[in-house]
């Protein structure tokens, strides 16, 4: 798998500096691969480290954060080592991002034209006239009616769904090799959700690799090919998307599926995971999930666990996990 990987992250570790205390480890040895034309879901709850992981790769962490270990190979170069100046040449051209809220991600004082042509001009990809042409085309591609006219409007003049489309157009305009989408449909209505996902799917079909950060397992199933499940800064399970949802193995993945409600599942028993995720400043020893895990067995689960291969294309970090025969 790794020889055809577009982005290959290995052993990423990101810490946050704190006043008068030990640094906080938000991402703790995370590894994954993204392939061309494939989508990887990073699934996990708030505080699991999914966004910090992606921000580390993109080099857009807050100043209190530090990457202390790991590499992120993209196009033969380690994004974590090339430095900010080189990273800027990659960001917005080869790797683009789509965020949860277009209202916050876009500049409210600039027209769509300025925002859509910015990357093309900054990276010197084309001249202004050509950039405008490409921007109009991108707006049309994402289903914004009358793009020639709309390109002169400001973000606030668009509806929520249209704004989300405009942000996707902004990410698409440079034809990036990798797109990172952080909860791209969380803020839109369900009837718009699928349209947005179908737009992103077109990108995927053109060969763009996508990393989708999401807590919505339905969205993940619809759009993604593979998944990693994160908990307390670690990857606890990695599997092909359908396999994860139909046959989760790590006790946390099982719990996540048991907590999810879905239409038609009224009679299914709800099995919430007891307790709440650990405070990262008091991370439990060994498996971070063991204090909430019904299957935990001490002292073994309180010691470090190597990631175990449990089947084709899937592994889990758990002593008790069932392994395919």
């Amino acid at each position, binding site marked *: 798998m790794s020889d055809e990987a577009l982005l290959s992250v290995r052993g990423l570790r990101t810490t946050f500096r704190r006043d008068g205390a030990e640094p906080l480890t938000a991402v703790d040895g995370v590894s994954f691969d993204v392939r061309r034309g494939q989508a990887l879901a990073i699934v996990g709850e708030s505080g699991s480290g999914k966004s910090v992981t992606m921000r580390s790769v993109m080099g857009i962490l807050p100043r209190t954060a530090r990457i202390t270990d790991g590499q992120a190979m993209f196009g033969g170069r380690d994004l974590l080592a090339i430095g900010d100046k080189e990273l800027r040449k990659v960001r917005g051209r080869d790797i683009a991002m789509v965020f949860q809220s277009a209202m916050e991600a876009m500049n409210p004082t600039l027209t769509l034209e300025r925002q859509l042509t910015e990357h093309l001009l900054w990276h010197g990809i084309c001249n202004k006239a050509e950039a405008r042409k490409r921007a109009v085309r991108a707006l049309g591609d994402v289903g914004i009616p009358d793009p020639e006219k709309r390109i002169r409007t400001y973000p606030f003049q668009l509806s929520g769904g249209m704004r989300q489309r405009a942000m996707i157009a902004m990410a698409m305009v440079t034809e990036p090799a990798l797109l990172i989408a952080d909860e791209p449909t969380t803020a839109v209505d369900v*009837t718009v*959700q699928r349209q947005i996902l179908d737009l992103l799917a077109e990108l995927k079909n053109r060969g763009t690799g996508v990393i989708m950060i999401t807590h919505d397992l*339905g969205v993940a199933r619809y759009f993604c090919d593979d998944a990693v499940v994160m908990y307390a800064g670690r990857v606890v399970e990695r599997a092909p998307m359908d396999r994860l949802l139909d046959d989760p193995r790590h006790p946390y993945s099982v719990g996540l599926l048991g907590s999810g409600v879905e239409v*038609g*599942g*009224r009679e299914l028993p709800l099995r*919430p995971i007891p307790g709440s995720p650990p405070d990262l400043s008091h991370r439990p020893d060994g498996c971070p999930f063991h204090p909430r895990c019904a299957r935990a067995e001490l002292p073994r689960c309180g010691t470090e666990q190597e990631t175990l291969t449990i089947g084709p294309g899937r592994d889990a970090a758990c002593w008790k996990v069932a392994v395919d025969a």
Partner: protein
Amino acid sequence: MPDKLVHAESVTKVFRTRAGEVRAVDDVSLTVHRGETLGLVGESGSGKSTMARLMMGLQTPTSGRVEFDGQDLSKLPARELRLLRPRMQMVFQNPYGSLLPHFSAIGNVMEPLRLHERGDKESRRTKALELLDLVGINTGHAELYPRQFSGGQQQRIAIARALALEPDLLVCDEPTSSLDVSIQAQILELFTDLRDRLGLSFLFISHNLAVVERLADRVAVMNKGRVVEEGSTEDLFRAPQDDYTRQLLSAVLPIRQAPGL
């Protein structure tokens, strides 16, 4: 037919904005019967939150009327409306925004009791501790402040506060939408438990169809200020009649291969 606890009769609410008149709620009639959970679903801007505020008497309808236990809310003098208030309480989407940040958990739960002059300080404390225990907050943490709790725990405290005055009706506006799935499941269990134990009536508003399907006895679907369909949860989810309801249901992306099996 069980009796009506709160009933809206062809209510319309028009807001005047710079962009002109907005008909947020347009000729809607809804009833929550005693002991029943009515689910109200719809997308953003459909008018469901405005409907909630109208049914709570927090806003007066432009036309039509809302009756709580047979009394027309817009005709009641302020004093009498104030006496009715404890019987209907609300739980909001963002628990941190709805709690008083400078009051401890127990202080938040005691506050409605103090405002409505229930008991003395000692009995209010005892009652608040019972409520925190009921919603699953470790009473040893009663003196901590809202920010020291997780989002799910904050929502539990907000629910305890809403229960303090022993309401008949709990209006919940997207109460689990800001919570993680595993925490959402815990809060859904809490609501089910409270309904069974206290015989509460609920108006439960959510854009999440799965959550509503799980909790509601009946469901009303709103679109552009109107109720387009209303029916028992089972019928509505199994055989939706309205085009918009069908569109909403078909937009849901399944998680499991075959839900319900």
